[in-house]
């Protein structure tokens, strides 16, 4: 390998040495290209693999866990739900529209790969401060448009999401897309090539020069001149994706498809080696048989191209006619490029000449990289309470207008969230979105993250995402089913960055173990760091949790229902304001004690809320998180256009001032409303449950009125709060609400 080649590739000296020694020869140029793609951090998880083994992956509903294209869960009656999360951070930073769109394309293929129909998309986005930064506005506008144009066109509803704004994401925005699929257990397919003689088919788009070395691009920091890396971004074609989806879903019914995998990061190199190694076989292919977008694509480019809308199918030699006929009906281009062999090798020919011949096992097992972690020197944490502003009504209005808290209607109205006629609880209506399943049950879906807290305390921050997502799923009446996570950090060779990664994995792992939640998939994205300023993003773990609701009567939303309903708070408020929206936005304080996770208390509160919901005792439920009790009350009032009269005197809490009580973001808390005739029953169950609780007020009038004993804290008209909350993001984006 020459100096210039080395610069071109992302391989380290040790990896180059190892490859040569293992093969006993100098690899060919095509082989270097394949090795480089498959051994990129993006494809190989070489920095994270060891730690990820900590995560608990088993559960009674789990059919397919991590290591495949998507996690699959049994939801009963022969039906399955699949889930997966992906990110397209680097591409979206240089080409927000195309990057975000192809991010969706990728996760849709993952869901399809296991033989399930994509039925819902969830997007988790991070941008810089849109109030101050025009570049961040440009990114937001185009990322949302990219998601909308692609998702709407393929006919998969975008049902939920989460957005945060923080200046650490100014250059490195994060675009995570998760997808939920539904299918039948008997239609499940694995990404395996097992039987020698089977044919290998590429269906869908043509192979071109877009997305060349995309996996390698994603596995390094964004350079100063990152804008020149647009050729690493793939070109979206949602219409071709729609045809591919429809045709493959129809072809699944033929039973002819024996193995299937999407062509994503690392292109053919990655898909072929992973399918062959999982099936314990080899694959031989001829590149001249590919449908090429331009005639002079070189063999190396063909092997690493990440051109979109392509699926790799393994079909029986004699049994492929029905599948090929269906693909032709949809005018989906097909190329039969090779066959499965028994020699365990990936053999690549170009015009009959062998240009690469590598053991699949060698490709999928790169030497792991030893990473070192060093905890940063802890800052002198301010344990004393900060003095808050006098006017808490105004404070609440300011928080309502913060883009992190304000209504995201401007975003979700651009997404078709209804197509497929499954969306029961829609964006903005409840703590989680709820989808109708074909077996009469319902699936709750919610993604959560909190990068400010995660960067103050990666262990509790990451576990806190899981805790919050579980609480959100419980709030709509669902029992948490499974989790996929997405861990996004800076450069892993930075020891402090790696420490925060490792703490996050431990946090999620321990929390999931304690609450009995299986992790069925996930993704790691490193190198979210500006090469120029050397500044990494704030640690951004994200948790996507699904939950199951067995009875439609249990579906619960957060809007208050009836005048006179009693309001209870469940859970104890603690002096944990570090990383809170209140500290950041109002007091400008970036320190303090962030909320800790307490899995045992969470379990007790969650199961209590589920019992209350199932007994039909609650009229509305809202979890208490970002913005604390103050915001949670406002969010229950606004959609109902109803007011509340609250006295926090009895709210369970440690000693703290009124403003801390209103805005602390302690985990494990819910606000619930109860019809007057059921208060007695609820109180009995609360007392038995051992969960700290208090009756704090009732639904009354048209204003949010909060006091603490004799002291008035907040008095705001609900319609005024609604206006502030609704108009904030449209106004920032230069539009009227």
């Amino acid at each position: 390998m020459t100096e210039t080649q080395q610069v071109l590739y992302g391989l380290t000296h040790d990896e180059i040495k190892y490859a040569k020694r293992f093969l006993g020869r100098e690899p060919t140029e095509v082989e270097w290209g394949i090795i480089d793609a498959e051994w990129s951090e993006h494809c190989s998880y070489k920095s994270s693999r060891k730690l990820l083994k900590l995560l608990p992956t088993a559960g009674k509903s789990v059919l397919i866990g991590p290591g495949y294209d998507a996690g699959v869960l049994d939801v009963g009656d022969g039906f399955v739900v699949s889930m997966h999360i992906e990110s397209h951070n680097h591409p979206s930073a240089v080409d927000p529209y195309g990057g975000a769109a192809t991010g969706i394309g990728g996760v849709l293929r993952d869901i399809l790969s296991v033989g399930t129909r994509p039925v819902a998309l969830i997007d988790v986005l991070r941008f810089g401060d849109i109030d101050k930064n025009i570049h961040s506005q440009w990114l937001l506008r185009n990322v949302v448009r990219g998601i909308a144009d692609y998702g709407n066109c393929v006919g998969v509803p975008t049902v939920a999401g989460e957005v945060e704004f923080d200046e650490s994401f100014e250059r490195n925005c994060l675009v995570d897309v998760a997808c939920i699929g539904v299918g039948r257990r008997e239609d499940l397919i694995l990404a395996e090539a097992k039987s020698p003689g089977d044919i290998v088919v590429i269906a869908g788009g043509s192979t071109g020069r877009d997305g060349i070395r995309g996996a390698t691009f994603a596995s390094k920091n964004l350079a100063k001149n990152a804008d020149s890396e647009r050729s690493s971004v793939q070109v979206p074609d949602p219409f071709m994706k729609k045809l591919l989806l429809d045709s493959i879903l129809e072809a699944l019914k033929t039973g002819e498809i024996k193995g299937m995998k999407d062509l994503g990061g690392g292109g053919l190199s990655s898909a072929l080696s992973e399918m062959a190694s999982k099936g314990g076989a080899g694959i031989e292919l001829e590149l001249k048989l590919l449908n090429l977008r331009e005639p002079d694509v070189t063999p190396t480019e063909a092997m690493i191209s990440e051109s979109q809308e392509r699926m790799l199918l393994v079909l029986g030699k004699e049994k492929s006619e029905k599948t090929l006929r269906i693909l032709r009906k949809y005018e989906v281009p097909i190329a039969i490029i090779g066959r499965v062999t028994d020699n365990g090798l990936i053999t690549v020919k170009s015009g009959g000449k062998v240009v690469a011949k590598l053991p699949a096992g060698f490709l999928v097992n790169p030497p792991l990289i030893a990473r070192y972690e060093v905890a940063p020197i802890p800052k002198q944490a301010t344990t004393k309470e900060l003095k808050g502003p006098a006017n808490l009504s105004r404070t609440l209005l300011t928080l309502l207008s913060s883009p992190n808290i304000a209504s995201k209607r401007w975003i979700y109205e651009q997404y078709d969230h209804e197509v497929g006629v499954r969306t029961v609880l829609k964006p903005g209506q409840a703590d989680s979105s709820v989808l109708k399943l074909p077996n009469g049950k319902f699936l709750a879906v919610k993604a959560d993250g909190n990068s400010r807290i995660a960067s103050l305390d990666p262990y509790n921050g990451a576990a806190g995402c899981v805790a919050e997502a579980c609480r959100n799923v419980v709030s709509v009446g669902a029992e948490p089913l499974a989790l996929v996570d997405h861990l996004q950090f800076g450069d892993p060779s930075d020891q402090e960055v790696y420490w925060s990664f490792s703490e996050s994995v431990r946090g999620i792992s321990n929390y999931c173990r304690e609450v009995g939640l299986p992790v069925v998939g996930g993704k790691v994205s490193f190198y979210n760091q500006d090469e120029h300023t050397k500044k990494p993003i704030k640690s951004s773990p994200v948790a996507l949790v699904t939950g199951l609701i067995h009875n439609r009567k249990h579906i619960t939303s957060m809007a208050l229902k009836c005048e006179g309903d009693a309001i209870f708070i469940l859970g104890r408020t603690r002096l944990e304001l570090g990383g809170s929206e209140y500290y950041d936005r109002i007091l400008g304080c970036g320190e303090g004690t962030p909320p800790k996770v307490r899995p045992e208390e969470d379990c007790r509160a969650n199961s209590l809320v589920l019992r209350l919901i199932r007994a039909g005792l609650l009229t509305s439920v809202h979890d208490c998180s970002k913005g604390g009790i103050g915001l949670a009350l406002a969010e229950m009032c606004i959609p109902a256009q109803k007011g509340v009269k609250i006295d926090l005197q009895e709210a369970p809490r440690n000693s703290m001032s009124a403003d801390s009580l209103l805005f602390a973001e302690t985990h494990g808390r819910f606000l619930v409303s109860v019809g007057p005739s059921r208060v007695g029953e609820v109180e009995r169950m609360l007392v038995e449950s051992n969960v700290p609780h208090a009756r704090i007020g009732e639904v009354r009038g048209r204003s949010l009125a909060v006091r603490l004993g004799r002291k008035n804290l907040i008095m705001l008209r609900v319609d005024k709060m609604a206006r502030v909350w609704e108009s904030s993001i449209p106004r920032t984006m230069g539009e009227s609400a």
Partner: protein
Amino acid sequence: MNVAVVRFPGSNCDLDVVAALGATKGLKPKLVWHENDDLEGFDALILPGGFSFGDYLRAGAIAARSPSIVRVRRLAERGVPILGICNGFQILVEAGLLPGSLLRNSGLRFVCKWVTLRVENNRTPFTRRSRRGEVLRLPIAHNEGRLFLPKDELAALNRKGRIVFRYTNEKGEPTPGKNPNGSQENIAGICNEDGNVLGMMPHPERAVDPILSSEGRSDGLAIFESLAGLSRSGN
């Protein structure tokens, strides 16, 4: 009553429409691939929403020029009830079966939300079950739904009662604030001269199962029940 749901490459709401028809008493839906030429045996036709042919060129433009549209046109002339929903409406307009053009929304963004509609004409096969002036709640989801017509054509449509739905407030008043896409005179749906071809931007199939409506309503059913009622009264 046999109803064909015509599926173009890129149709999205085809299965949703089939489900809605299936939930309506008296209707027998069948999904028909656009190239099949057996549209003849059907009593009604629905062009569902989506992005036919990726909406490349213009929304509905390519589907409107595909060979299948010749067969649709023949049925339209014979008086067979035809409903185009969303992209189906765009196809009917592009094909010249309905007048005007559907331009990009005035907000220049895709809009997905529930809207209120007033029934202006209850003499079409799809609105017979509704009263004139009745208010329906249905969702919209489109990027190009702003109907535009030259003034004289618009006046003619009004005169002949060919405006079937308008976007309104809860009281049935077509206010500018309740116009989600800038459509002329808040128009959400129109029909042809004979009234048998209806195009509408809102999605009735998404408002059939009451669990999908936050108000527990199923106003979309009125559209499909109207169609079913037609066959019972022997029209």
